[in-house]
């Protein structure tokens, strides 16, 4: 797509989304009825490790930073699409090898100083550093340069259609260069950025208190600057039962990550709502294709046929989610056409016999203390044993099991993967291409046809073609029995009914700038 078309297209999308948002939230009447003010208290299971956008990869940090800092391109209301952020427009060169971004006029940092192209170039260079947490998303970037006082250009080594998604990462946020370079540690406690909120206090292990950034550039539906709230308290409440009790008690207005066993009962409580929002997460069993007997595709397929996913969905997930037909989460090009592998013990037995299984035991690894994953492992062990495999469950603490996975000292590992980018390329390449530093995300899976298709998809800007290519990749990798996929797990939250406009977006956080309290 040419850049002018792309701009037109994104403008149309924004208008459509805005129209939808207004319609779905009750139309103009509610837009006029929006109430400003109040304090929103959110209890969540994570605590930020830092508020420096260039360091973290943990959700506790990321979701808080997303309220305070903004990049040039932003995720949209659902998180699946993109919309202009600190750049009000951008243009790709005809060969797809460079992108020029125009900085929005008059944007100021939360300390009142204007945002300059130098700040943006500095920030992008920080995130694109290969040693930074999200440096991998900028691998194809050759250089980042200032063009003039309102434009900057990113030049690529090869065409890379995921670039805009990478620029929309929380980690690509534009920071005040002067404040960051003066004292990065202080910046990590109280960042100077351009988001709707700024940090009033950050007590590690306890809470982050956010107050409106008076210089925020975006207006609300009532025509006045966002955000609507006077204050947001992001409380760290690691114990899931304590979060639920606190919500019932009225101590919290919203809670994140409701224990699945209690989701149904919260739905029954008057004055409260349960939110089940799609996300980019897949729970699955990692398989190490370099280890016997998993190196044999027939054994891997048998493990898939003998996996009683219905039982897992019912007893572990309480019906929340969707049985997976892919090796990766449902990012934007997920295809429902890929035929799921059914639960079929006879088929599994036949495959194991055909493979001439020699009785090599399979050690199924689980993180110590992760009760749901232990339950999953037990159900899998049961099915696999019935099919004729020897299975042993082993438990290690997360650090150790991760180390073993990464060094290839494992056979099967019950875990999960999430995507922070709203484009399929990141995870598809990470999991499907063995040339990367993780060797196909620790699977040692090798398929040159997939590598070839991935390269094509990365360089195609035509959406239909990309969908077709990712559909093919999904079909091949899934039926190569890359892993044992289990559940596309959604986000499950709950909130008091007075909380309006709360939505969990696909990349994990919530746009608190648009939340208001009906009180």
């Amino acid at each position, binding site marked *: 797509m040419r850049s002018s078309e792309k701009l037109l297209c994104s403008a149309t999308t924004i208008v459509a989304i805005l129209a939808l948002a207004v319609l779905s939230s009750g139309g103009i009447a509610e837009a006029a009825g929006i109430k400003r003010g109040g304090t929103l208290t959110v*209890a969540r299971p994570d605590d930020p*490790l*830092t508020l*420096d956008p260039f*360091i*973290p*990869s*943990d959700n506790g940090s990321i979701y808080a930073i997303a309220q305070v800092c903004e990049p040039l391109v932003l995720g949209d209301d659902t998180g699946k699409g993109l919309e202009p952020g600190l750049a009000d427009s951008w243009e790709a060169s005809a060969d797809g090898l460079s992108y020029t971004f125009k900085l929005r006029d008059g944007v100021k940092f939360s300390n009142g100083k204007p945002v300059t192209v130098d700040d943006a170039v500095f920030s992008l260079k920080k995130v694109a550093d*290969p*040693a930074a*947490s999200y*440096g*991998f998303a900028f691998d194809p970037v050759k250089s980042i340069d200032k063009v003039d006082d309102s434009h900057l250009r990113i030049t690529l080594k090869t065409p890379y259609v995921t670039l805009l998604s990478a620029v929309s990462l929380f980690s690509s946020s534009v920071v005040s260069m002067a404040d960051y370079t003066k004292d*990065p*540690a202080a910046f*990590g*406690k109280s960042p100077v950025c351009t988001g709707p909120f700024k940090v009033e206090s950050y*007590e*590690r*292990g*306890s*809470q982050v208190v956010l107050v409106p950034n008076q210089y925020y550039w975006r207006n609300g539906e009532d025509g006045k600057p966002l955000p609507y709230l006077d204050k947001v308290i992001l*409380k*760290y*409440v*690691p*114990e899931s*039962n*304590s979060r639920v*009790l*606190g919500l*019932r*008690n009225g*101590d919290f207005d919203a809670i994140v990550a409701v224990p699945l066993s209690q989701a149904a009962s919260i739905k029954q409580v008057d004055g409260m709502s349960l939110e089940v929002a799609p996300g980019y997460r897949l729970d699955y069993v990692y398989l190490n294709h370099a280890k016997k007997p998993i190196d044999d595709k027939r054994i891997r397929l048998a493990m898939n046929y003998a996996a009683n996913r219905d039982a897992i969905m019912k007893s572990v997930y309480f019906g929340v989610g969707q049985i997976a037909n892919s090796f990766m989460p449902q990012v934007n090009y997920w295809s429902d056409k890929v035929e799921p592998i059914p639960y079929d013990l006879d088929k599994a037995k036949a495959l194991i016999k055909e493979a001439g299984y020699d009785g090599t035991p399979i050690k199924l690894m689980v993180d110590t203390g992760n009760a749901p994953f232990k339950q999953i492992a037990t159900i899998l062990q049961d099915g696999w044993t019935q099919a004729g495999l020897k299975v042993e469950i082993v438990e290690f*603490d*997360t*650090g*150790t099991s*991760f*180390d*073993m*996975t*990464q060094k290839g000292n494992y056979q099967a590992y019950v875990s999960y993967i999430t995507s922070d980018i709203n484009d399929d390329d990141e995870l598809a390449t*990470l999991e499907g291409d063995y040339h990367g*530093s*993780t060797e196909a*995300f*620790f699977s040692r899976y090798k398929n040159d046809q997939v590598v070839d298709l991935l390269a094509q998809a990365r360089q195609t800007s035509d959406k239909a073609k990309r969908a077709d290519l990712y559909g093919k990749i999904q079909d091949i990798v899934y039926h190569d029995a890359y892993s044992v996929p289990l559940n596309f797990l959604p986000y499950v939250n709950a909130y008091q009914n007075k909380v309006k406009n709360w939505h969990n977006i696909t990349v994990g956080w919530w746009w608190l700038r648009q939340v208001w309290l009906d009180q």
Partner: protein
Amino acid sequence: MTSLRYVLERLLHALPVLLGVTIFVFFAIQLVPGDPIRIMMHGRISDQEVQAIYERLGMNRPLLIQYVDFLRKAATGDLGTSIIQNAPVTTLILEKFWPSIWLLASGAVISVLLALPLASISAFYRNRWADHLIRVAGMVGFAMPPFWIGLLLILGFGLWLGWFPIAGYGQDTAGHLHHMFLPGLTIALFLAPILVQSLRTSMLDVLAADYIEVARAKGLSEWRILLKHVLRNAAIPAITVLAVNIGWLVSGAVIVEYVFSLPGMGSLLVRSVGFRDYPVIQGLSLVFAVIVIVVNLLADLSYMLVDRRVLKA
């Protein structure tokens, strides 16, 4: 002067203990698989980048040199920088220090306030129904997991009665007292039965002593004998039990910290171990060792107050 010498002697004895703890922790955590950079990056980083980061942090030097460096800096109060949080370890620990101390103090005070009268009643009415009731109730409290007790207390005092906050640490002294009551009670319901048991046993021993007979012969009332002569002499074993348990609770109260969302050192340790954040683990171990030593010293000093003969021993 004897008391001062006694304290100094105890402090001198503590030095090798501290050194031993640091040596053990420093080398033991290196043996555990997993490294912080790869965990933080979810493995999405090349070996060269990891090496470059370690070089920058000085973590690729020989272990002995790193250890000496750690000791040298620790002596000046600098415990290094957290790899995961990019903040000074001293700051991170100080933020969690007071919530932990408040939790321990409230747990200990409520335990003692519960244990003293209950143990006295138990000893005074030994083998009668009050004694049996206290012992059975104690056993039930001790047998219930702190996690569950905590949730029950939240449900009862927080949700139904609404008397106490159920999460957090509070802003000022009054707030801390208010917030720390339920967590303290959770600890006390586990700790008090142990104290009651040990106090009751030693009170019964003392009650059988000759000098109690003498006191009785002088015509003192049973309650007066119990409070003035028995309790004082029976306290030493209970103080020891309390000190040992507080030492354990410094890092072991993590479940209580989780249930009540308290920003304490126990949860910091658990998380740092998960991330293999070596500088924080080392720093915390040092602080825990110091706290255990100080608590034991305080226990020794309180023996002195209770019984001056300790100084002569």
